[in-house]
């Protein structure tokens, strides 16, 4: 430890990192969380980057309701296990086609749980306890088909409850509206379950549409949802093809193209269209800007909310 004179005051370190630096922290077999909610706010630089780097055997913790970003990780062969109460795209895809296919073919294991169990598990991780109890689910198939969930008698009243194990996350990837250079992250809207994912993770990297000044963050500190991400990634249009609240809506045409490709694999066992999608939009682009150019600026700027 060293001291300094007032003339050479120590300076605070910026936490803005390159996406590749963040991705390099991920190793085969880790538990990685992907934030957002169905068709919004997924950290797509991270998702595409993990695929491009060929990471394997991940346990992927999706959002409470996950979208097709998880489907894509499955399609590309990165995920061995998925922790998600739902994988789909609502009207764009009632069930994730690659999710459905990979599970039916035994290529991916599902940690079966509902949204309340999901948050009970995330909270246990954040609280550093091995489990949290939950009532709903007693009488259902969940403890049968997910042996990690145990039925037990509560030590206070002897009631029958489920014990939901802690869902510890090695690294969380999130996408938000803004951050200052020091990792104080703010959303437009409430950020879905991202806060709960952040609290359950040992490390977190947050993509943002824009880096803003610390003074801007301090104008409304109550809005700071994540008080210190480990790394901030500059990522304009970084949730594309999903929406980024306050910035752009989802790109339905792009999502439908993906669904079509993944459905060909599911229905006709034809990986061709999915391979072509991956080549064009995931492994092919040199970087995020190259990806956006392949999507096309005209398309991107047509995604205004109003």
């Amino acid at each position, binding site marked *: 430890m060293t001291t300094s004179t007032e003339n050479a005051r120590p300076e605070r370190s910026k936490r803005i990192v390159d996406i590749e630096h963040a991705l390099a922290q991920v190793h085969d077999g880790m538990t990685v969380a992907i934030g957002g909610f169905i068709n919004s706010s997924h950290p797509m630089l991270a998702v595409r980057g993990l695929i491009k780097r060929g990471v394997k055997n991940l346990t992927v913790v999706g959002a409470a309701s996950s979208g097709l970003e998880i489907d894509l990780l499955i399609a590309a062969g990165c995920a061995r296990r998925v922790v998600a109460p*739902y994988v789909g795209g609502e009207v764009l895809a009632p069930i994730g086609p690659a999710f459905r296919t990979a599970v039916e073919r035994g290529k991916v294991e599902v940690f079966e749980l509902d949204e309340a169990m999901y948050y009970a598990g995330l909270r246990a991780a954040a609280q550093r306890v091995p489990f949290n109890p939950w009532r709903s689910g007693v009488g259902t198939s969940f403890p049968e088909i997910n042996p990690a969930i145990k039925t037990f008698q509560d030590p206070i009243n002897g009631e029958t409850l489920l014990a939901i194990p802690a869902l510890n996350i090695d690294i969380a990837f999130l996408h938000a509206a803004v951050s200052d250079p020091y990792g104080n992250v703010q959303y437009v809207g409430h950020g879905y379950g991202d806060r709960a994912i952040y609290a359950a993770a040992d490390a977190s990297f947050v993509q943002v549409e824009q880096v803003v000044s610390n003074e801007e963050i301090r104008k409304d500190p109550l809005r700071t949802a994540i008080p210190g991400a480990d790394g901030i990634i500059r990522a304009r249009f970084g949730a594309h093809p999903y929406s980024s609240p306050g910035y752009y809506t989802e790109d339905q045409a792009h999502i439908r193209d993906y669904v079509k490709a993944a459905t060909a694999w599911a229905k006709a066992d034809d990986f061709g269209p999915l391979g072509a999608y991956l080549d064009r939009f995931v492994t092919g682009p040199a970087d995020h800007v190259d990806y956006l150019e392949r999507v096309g600026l005209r398309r991107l700027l047509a995604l205004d909310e109003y």
Partner: protein
Amino acid sequence: MQSELQATNREIMATVLARDLADGEWVEVGANLPVPRAGVLLAHLLWGPNMTVMIAMTKANVLNEPVIEEFQLITDQRATRWAEAYYLHDDLVENMKFRRKGVFFAGALQIDRYGNSNLIGIGADYRALKFRGPGAIGVCNATVMNSRFHLVVNAHDKRIFVPKCDFVSAYGWGSGGKDARTRLGLPGGGPRYVVTPLAVMDFEDESKRMRLKSVHPGVSVQQVLDNTGFELLVPAQVAVTETPSADELRVLRTRIDVQGALRN
């Protein structure tokens, strides 16, 4: 298209759900669930000004909106513009006291005679599913913690109405009996109605077996029985489902469902 005065089956379904709702109740308007959405809004606009209506995870103030725009996706940020408050998603799913005033609407891949239902998948062996479903979302919990729930499906056939669900992701009345839920420590509300394009079912008080309550106009009792994969209780008199009043139909078509999701 239907005549100006005649309600479609989906408008009738929405009206059935609306009429079960009382002022002051708490309800979620899911995206891409046009029938429950319309039912909730109909009740809210006509007799439930103090209902709490959740849209896109916000507490929405739409009571005086001339036209309530429909959003396709639950993540559509534009649907948050009526917000008085946001529900953090984990609070929404974990803070359960407010759900004592809540009413929930659930879909299903399979439903059995006791209102147990399945969103997980189809197949005898969980490790080798014939059809993998989307997952239970928040349905397992919401069907326990709300005061009651309704099963709402877009089709009425023997693939959905089965003697036994391959998996149960939302507990109904178990293997029957009015104490089926409280025996397990679950609040006793449970499933009230099952609403389909053909009919409305409820559950007989003692056995909690599913019972035909009413058939929609133009639907025969036999048609319902032929499309149900288990023995439905049928009362001596089966009513025809009440259709929306002229006032209700007007509000549905001019304020709630202007784009006609329920009319196509």
